[in-house]
């Protein structure tokens, strides 16, 4: 096995040994999904402003977005900041491993974990709640990949700029919870007040949730959201590359 593959494999194993990251990535979205599906009785179709959607359909699509946010805003930044803070990154660098290699391996692990957790959610919602599967799987996959990669880049940047693991956790939580509650993953956007909705419009997680929900529930993809995500990705990558040289 090459060095990068081995590093990614070890990082994957380390992730699964980290209770905090595992809970936030796997258990948290699942628990909230169950609570929300059971809070809302199926109406005569059209939940959350989507044609024929029941609550479980609506929430399954948006909770894949919550998984992405949990990995990108909490698990990854805390992990990277811990490596920086405790001198783990320096130890690797002393063995001629560039910082971006380690961060890259961690981001790949984040992607794999987001995929695994999303599959777990989908299987669970399908088996226990008979939730709808995507109308346009290809477009959902595009939305998922663009959203995940963008949020991973945000996570890398947060991991680099925060002071230490505690700081990363605090900042990550502060970004995660408002986005989680206002992106459509909590109360549906169609019952939000206009003020709340205009805040929701500028949250990157809203762009992700919309890019998942629309093709999932048979609406048109809003490409502008994907373009916004792409812009955010570019900014985070450029800043991270610059800052990583100084770590």
């Amino acid at each position, binding site marked *: *096995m*090459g*060095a990068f593959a*081995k*590093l990614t494999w*070890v990082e994957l*194993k*380390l992730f699964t*040994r*980290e209770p905090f990251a595992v809970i936030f990535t796997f258990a948290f979205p699942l628990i909230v999904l169950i609570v929300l599906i059971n809070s809302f009785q199926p109406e005569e179709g059209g939940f959350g402003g989507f044609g024929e959607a029941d609550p479980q359909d609506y929430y399954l699509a948006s909770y894949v977005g919550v998984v992405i946010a949990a990995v990108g805003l909490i698990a990854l930044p805390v992990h990277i900041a*811990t*490596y920086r803070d*405790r*001198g*783990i990154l*320096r*130890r690797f*660098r*002393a*063995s*001629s*491993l560039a910082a971006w290699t380690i961060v890259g391996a961690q981001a790949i692990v984040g992607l794999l974990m987001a995929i695994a957790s999303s599959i777990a959610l989908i299987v669970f919602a399908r088996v226990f709640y008979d939730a709808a599967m995507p109308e346009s799987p290809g477009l959902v996959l595009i939305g998922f990949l663009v959203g995940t990669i963008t949020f991973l880049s945000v996570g890398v940047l947060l991991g680099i700029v925060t002071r230490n693991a505690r700081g990363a956790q605090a900042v990550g939580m502060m970004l995660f919870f408002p986005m989680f509650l206002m992106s459509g993953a909590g109360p549906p956007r169609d019952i939000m007040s206009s003020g709340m909705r205009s805040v929701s419009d500028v949250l990157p997680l809203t762009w992700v949730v919309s890019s998942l929900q629309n093709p999932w529930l048979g609406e048109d993809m809003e490409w502008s959201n994907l373009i916004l995500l792409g812009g955010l990705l570019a900014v985070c990558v450029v800043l991270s590359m610059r800052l990583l040289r100084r770590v």
Partner: protein
Amino acid sequence: MPPVIEVEHLQKRYGSLEAVKDVSFSVEQGEIFGILGPNGAGKTSTVECVQGLREPSSGSIRMLGIDAIGQRSQLRGRIGSQLQESALPDRMKVWEALDLFASFTTGGPDWKVLLEQWGLTEKAKTSFADLSGGQQQRLFIALALVNEPEVVFLDELTQGLDPGARRVAWDLIREIRARGATVVIVTHYMDEAEQLCDRLAVISGGEIVATGRPQELIANSERGIKVRFSTQQQDLTWLESIDAVSAVSRHGDAVEVTGSGPVLAMTASALVAHGIVPADLRALQPSLEDVYLDMIGSGEEADANGRVR
């Protein structure tokens, strides 16, 4: 044979802080070279620049005949590092760390051999966080050797180890040298410097204040060596004409000769030549610690503002 490491006029600034002002030293093939100095003297900055982990502000560094600043990538595979204040992920197991770090390099010994040699076989499946301080240090040494380096840097290796574990660490370092590597250690333990190092550089305030063998540093110190003996002979003025002697004093029969370098041997031969053979002739050397504290300006002295220097 040219020196393994040649550092000339190394300087390192962090913003307005001048951590390393002007440091030059060289390390010979197969030496255990010690860098000694108080906290904040610039020791770690110096060795981190030498290892290519930090960019020097100015100066030149050559290692193994290669420009260590311009062509540092050529050196990475040939040096091994144990860093101050570094760690591994808490839940990484010992065998995973060795297996992973071994994959970064080509060649090098089988990591299972290192596991055995450094007494970690039984701990192979233990997580980093569950190792004792001594076991963590042994793992760090094993990781530093995983690429079979020609030069090994050990920064405060025995920090936080109990006395028994430190002795073990010293033996391990001697073993590294016995395998043909050159070793650079950073320390502020005097006994470690005296027992382990072939040569030392003392750094204080970002500058080298002395280099040499531990015994040379002691012998050449301003404190001097005191030679004591007893005799009933009254006229000893001829002792003062010996080169290495700087002063002679006596209280009754007890004589004290102060000098430097070979003062004991010179005094002894002069005494014998004059028919004096005292049974209690002995030399009192200052300890390396005394000499070191003189060099760096002992921590007891406070400056005009009452701050301890």
